[in-house]
């Protein structure tokens, strides 16, 4: 009998090119996604050293972070120039570097354009059992399809471009088992926020998390992507969910998915991608799905979570003095008082988007709440930013765009948008935003911006009432 293996170990073992005695290994990378922010210095490095991209066919480039989410083409079909010269320079660099190195590039006005982590799965570029990297920490998302996917820095981007490998040390494995069923109105976003609240932002450091249990088996691929996406917020470099029939159904017929005999061979292999009975995890955490409430963040770390019907915690309630101190700072930044009911917190901005929650199912959930309703008067700015051109087209075909615009939302072009203060979509200083993104860090959505993370349905509910709201009060 061979030792039972975890899913992580199986994928790792299949990609070892060279094993060193000191425990590090050279790991082959099957898929590399490239965007404009973390790649210019890598291409520059290649150029300086006179190196080529080893496998341009395994590399896919798309702009997302810097792109304004307003119309990309004018009425004549000409490119709308980008006002910020630095953003423009970064975008131009990618547009020039991709063809110069023979890499497939999806341009800003291509219907396939979108946030890297949305388009990877959508195009069938992300596949189970592959190793996938991108110069972006939310690459963890792709683990939802059973790919070993993680974010890398720019030097590593350069290393992968040049060699199609990375020198890595094996991580520890962590099992997060969620038993039971999520209650009505509770979404995958609530679940992952709850998980991060339980294990903390450093809880998964040094680990690859495998999400297991019935909740994930019955979860849609979109939902799994939301969960795995935020693995990095729990400190883990990667998340994994074993591929199953839902994964195969999702991938079949996608543009870059295997076809014909290749599909059959792939399927046979993918079916072996589960953690073996008795496989040992270095760390195991069990969560009861019934404990998960509609969840929001109150502070400036994704672990600062509380059920929406709860109150802002008192800093003194933490045992750790440094956490007390951090909580005090967070509350000052967030303009909140200990003990204040979360449901009394008024919001002026609503952001529905980001690689965490901008897929069709997210938009459907938000539209389901907004249908026939309007945003509250105190909500000054509400935007919906689909994760890709294909998501946008699908939503429009379903009439979701009308529901959003009728409710007073702006309907935008795909991109990272207000997830980070890098493009024109920013939350004004001192104002609050009910956001479906993944980071509530100080200044993340713009200098002085106050972020409350939540699910798309919860963000829609906040738009309707103008304050943080338990979405279950608005479900019909």
């Amino acid at each position, binding site marked *: 009998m061979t030792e039972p293996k975890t899913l992580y170990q199986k994928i790792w073992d299949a990609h070892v090119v060279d094993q060193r005695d000191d425990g590090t290994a050279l790991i082959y990378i099957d898929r590399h996604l490239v965007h404009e922010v973390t790649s210019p210095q890598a291409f520059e490095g290649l150029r300086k050293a006179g190196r080529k991209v080893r496998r341009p066919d395994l590399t896919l480039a798309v702009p997302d*972070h810097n792109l304004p989410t307003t119309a990309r083409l004018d009425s004549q079909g000409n490119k709308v120039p980008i006002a910020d010269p630095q953003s423009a320079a970064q975008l131009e660099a990618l547009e020039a570097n991709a063809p110069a190195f023979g890499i497939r590039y999806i341009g800003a006005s291509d219907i396939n354009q979108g946030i890297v982590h949305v388009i990877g799965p959508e195009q069938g570029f992300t596949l189970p059992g592959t190793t996938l990297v991108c110069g972006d920490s939310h690459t963890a998302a792709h683990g939802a399809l059973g790919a070993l996917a993680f974010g890398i820095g*720019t030097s590593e981007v350069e290393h992968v471009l040049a060699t199609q490998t990375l020198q890595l040390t094996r991580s520890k494995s962590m099992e997060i088992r969620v038993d039971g069923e999520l209650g009505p109105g509770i979404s995958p976003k609530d679940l992952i926020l709850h998980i991060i609240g339980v294990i903390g932002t450093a809880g998964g450091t040094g680990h690859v998390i495998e999400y297991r249990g019935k909740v994930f088996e019955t979860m849609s691929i979109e939902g799994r992507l939301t969960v795995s996406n935020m693995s990095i917020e729990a400190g883990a470099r990667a998340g994994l969910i074993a591929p199953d029939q839902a994964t195969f159904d999702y991938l079949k017929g996608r543009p870059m998915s295997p076809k014909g005999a290749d599909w059959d061979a792939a399927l046979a292999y993918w079916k072996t991608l589960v953690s073996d009975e008795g496989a040992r995890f270095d760390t195991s955490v069990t969560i009861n799905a019934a404990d998960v409430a509609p969840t929001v963040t109150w502070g400036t770390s994704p672990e600062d979570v509380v059920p929406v019907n709860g109150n802002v915690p008192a800093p003194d309630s933490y045992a750790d003095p440094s956490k007390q101190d951090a909580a005090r700072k967070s509350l000052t930044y967030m303009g909140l008082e200990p003990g204040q009911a979360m449901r009394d917190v008024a919001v002026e901005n609503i952001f529905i988007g980001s690689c965490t929650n901008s897929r069709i199912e997210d938009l459907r959930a938000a539209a389901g709440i907004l249908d026939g309703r309007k945003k509250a008067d105190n909500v000054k700015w509400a935007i919906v930013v689909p994760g890709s051109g294909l998501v946008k087209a699908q939503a429009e075909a379903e009439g979701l765009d009308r529901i959003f615009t009728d409710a007073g939302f702006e309907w935008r072009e795909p991109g990272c948008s207000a997830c980070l203060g890098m493009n024109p979509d920013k939350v004004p200083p001192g104002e609050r935003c009910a956001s479906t993104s993944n980071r509530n860090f100080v200044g993340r959505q713009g200098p002085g911006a106050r972020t409350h993370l939540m699910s798309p349905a919860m963000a829609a509910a906040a738009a309707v009432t103008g304050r943080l709201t338990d979405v279950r009060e608005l479900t019909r």
Partner: protein
Amino acid sequence: MKSVQTVEGRAIPFGQKNVDTDVIIAAKWLKTISREGLGQGAFESIRAQEGNIFDDPEYAGASILIAGDNFGCGSSREHAAWALDDMGIKAIIAPSFSDIFSGNAFKNGLLAIALPQEAIDRLMEVAKTEPITIDMESMSVTTPFQDRFSFEMDPFRHQCLMEGLDEIDLTMAKSDAIERHEKNTDSAMHWLKPAAA
């Protein structure tokens, strides 16, 4: 990569936990296509505060930063390492680092030294008045008061840092093994090649 044998100098006793890379360098500084000049944007939100430790003349020219748990968490931006390097920091000492940050630090010849909290507490004290020395050969951090803390480092990284080896060159020397892997997967797992879209 330049080789690093020792880092000696004043250390900024910063001490904060969970310092994310957005704090080290905010998103607006990421719109660059070069690795240089990011020092001016480092810790911007902290430096905006009166009397902050980074602008304290006591620590002008410091080459070491002492921080709390989970340093460099959050976004994968290597700009954080470039910014620290550009502000003259050559080593960061903390109880733990995010995986991505410690990788990024290493690639840029920055030392990310993990020491237990007690050692950090002691170094935070010493740093207020005295310099600190990191010796790569003996893998130890010492102070003028005879404190001595040993640290561990991944042997591969240790060797690369000591000898100033270029990682891409090292990997390229293994191109036979890479090619073999590609040939094997190409026949056994032909589906791995992305379908032409």
